[in-house]
Each structure stands twice: as C-alpha cells, then as structure tokens.
C-alpha cells in the first residue's frame, strides 16, 4: 500500500517537473511574440464586432465607431505576415492555437494574409464613404477573408478555452 502511494506521488512529481520544463522551454521572445499577436487579433475581433453592432442599429455611428474600428483593422492587418515568425508555433511550448500548417504551407498562408489586407483596406474606404449597404457587403467580405485563414490555420480548440 505504502509502495503504491509512493509510486503515485513519484509519478505525479515527474509529470509536474516535466510540465514545468516544457513550460520553461518556451523562450521569452516567443512567448512575447505569441501574446502580442493574440492581443492584436483580439483587437481586430473586437473592432469587427463593434462595426457589426452598428450594422444592427437603425442609425450607424460612422465617425465615432465605424471609422476608428475600420482603421484599427487596417493598421493591424498591415503587420499580419510578420506576426508568425518561425518558432512561434506550438513547438515553442507556449499556449497558442496557431497550427504547424502555417509554416508548412507558408505560401498559402501569406496569400490568405494578403487577401485579408486588401479587404481591410476596402473596409476602411467604405467606412470613409459612409455607404451603409457597401459597409454590410464589405463586412461580410472581410469576415470571409478572416475565416478563410482561421478555418485552415487555427486549432478549433480555441473555442474550448476560457483564456481571452
């Protein structure tokens, strides 16, 4: 009985040490990189939500909501290809939903990123034009561009975690 308990404790300690080592394997640079890009993606998600909220309302607040949020999306999207340097995937050991496919199919990934940049620029134009129908269409196009990448290159596990 004592031996079994001892073995359980020893096994538990080995797992704990293993996890600690794995966590420590994530270099501070990679962790900072991952955290930073997650923050920027969150900004973009929040900005698109804010624009979508306006579309639901009777009157659209172009100047205070749509324009600044469209600008946020455009600004953030500009840096999109630089957010995924080699080594900032799951192999870093840090918590990320970026799939290894990003670096395996990097051409496709970069192409999709450029499509998102084009749509973000268009969205910004529409926000300045203040055309409600055009905004509706462009928000959909922007959404499709975001989703195209997320469907292939983000782990669906993100939905299960309460970390944002």
């Amino acid at each position: 009985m004592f031996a079994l308990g001892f073995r359980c404790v020893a096994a538990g300690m080995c797992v704990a040490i293993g996890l600690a080592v794995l966590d420590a394997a994530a270099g501070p640079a990679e962790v900072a990189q991952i955290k930073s890009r997650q923050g920027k993606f969150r900004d973009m998600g929040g900005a698109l939500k804010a624009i979508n909220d306006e579309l639901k309302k009777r009157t659209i607040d172009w100047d205070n909501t749509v324009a600044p949020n469209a600008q946020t999306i455009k600004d953030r999207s500009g840096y999109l290809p630089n957010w995924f340097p080699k080594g900032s995937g799951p192999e870093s050991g840090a918590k990320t939903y970026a799939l290894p496919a990003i670096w395996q199919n990097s051409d496709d990934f970069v192409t999709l990123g450029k499509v998102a940049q084009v749509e973000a620029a268009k969205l910004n134009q529409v926000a300045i034009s203040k055309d409600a129908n055009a905004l509706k269409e462009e928000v959909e196009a922007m959404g499709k561009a975001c989703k195209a990448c997320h469907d292939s290159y983000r782990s669906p596990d993100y939905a299960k975690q309460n970390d944002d």
Partner: protein
Amino acid sequence: MTSSEMSHMQSAVADTTDLRVWDLPVRAMHWLLVIGIGICWWTGLHNELEYHLYSGYAILWIVLMRLYWGLVGSSTARFVNFVRGPKAVLDYASTLHRRDTLHAHGHNALGAVSIVLMVGLVLAVLILGLFAVDVDGLYSGPLSSYVTFKQGRHLAHLHYYWFTILLWVIALHLAAMIFYFIYKRQNLVAPMISGKRRRNAGDTEMEIAPLWRFAIGGVIATAIVWAVSIGFYF
C-alpha cells in the same frame, strides 16, 4: 360465458388497444429539438457560426413553444400534470429497482426532473448564446451589441461550458431509456414516435389540445424570435 371469463376477455382486449400518450406537437418538438441540438453542436464545433445562429433560432422557437405548451397544451404536456415535489420524486425513485411497475401515463416523477433540467439547460445555453461574441467578431449573438467584446467572449465560454453540462444530462436521459427498455421492458422511444403505447388497466384518456391553439402560440413565438434576432432594434 361466465362473467369472470367476460372480464378476463375485456382486460385482454384492453391490453391490446393503444393509449394515446403524446400529442403531435410534443412529438414534433421533441424530434425537432434533437435535430436542432445536433446541428448546433456540429456547427459550433466546426465554427460554422452562420448556420449555428439559424439553428439556435429554431431551438429558441421550439423551447418557447414547449414552455407555452406546458401551460396550455395537451394534458401530458402540461407542467402541472407532471412536475412533482421532492417526496413524489423520491417515492418514485425508490421503485426504480422493481421490474413490475406500470408504464407511467406521460412523464414519471423522475423523468419530469430530467425534462425540467433539460429544458432549463437548453434555455440557459440559448440565453448565453444570444449575448455570446465569437473571437473573430463575425457571427456574434443577436443581443451581443449590448455587451462588450470581452464580456461577450466570457459569455461565449459559458455558452460552451453549459452546453457540455447539457450533453451530460442528455446522456443520462438516453441511459434512462436504455435502462427502461432492458430492465423494465418498457419501450419509451416508440410512443415518442407513434404517440401511443399499450394500454394498462385503469389508464385514462389524455386530453388533446386543439392544434389551432398551437398555431396561435407559434405566431407569438415567431414574433419573439424575430424581435430577438434583430436585437430589438425595431
């Protein structure tokens, strides 16, 4: 023929006739809810949120109708006829091990607990979903404009968390069906399809509510779902 033979024959005839236990709206709502939850589950897991929203609206309609039918529907659908206090539930639970108990007319006391639990959980998951925000800000719930991105993300996680609890209760519901079928030799699934089961001596007929009453509720529920879907921005 002696009178005892007559009564024996009568009871034999009674045993082979069918008794109506579930009306058409209850059966339709049950199976549509099964399909709706299946679609919501799949679309939620695969990030197909556009269709997740549509199937969510369908479920909202079904749950509103089930609540309405629980007040004004047919006798076996009404909450007053099957929701029981803790004593009745415990009394019923104490007979679970017996194999000779009769098929309950409508929900049994313990089954009622699981019905209330399931309807309550579906409603809770629905309400959380109405305010939930997806991480991309693309297909958020229709009422998500009333919460911030951060709050909406938190509600989305609760939406997911409570759904997993609902899945466990559904699993328990299925386990109970299997238990009744194997241990008690009572098929509870067939009556939910046909609406009828074999009659027991002493069973009384259920009162069937007219379908026009269901239709009136249907119009009201549709109006509520529509108002919710546009976020009450009339």
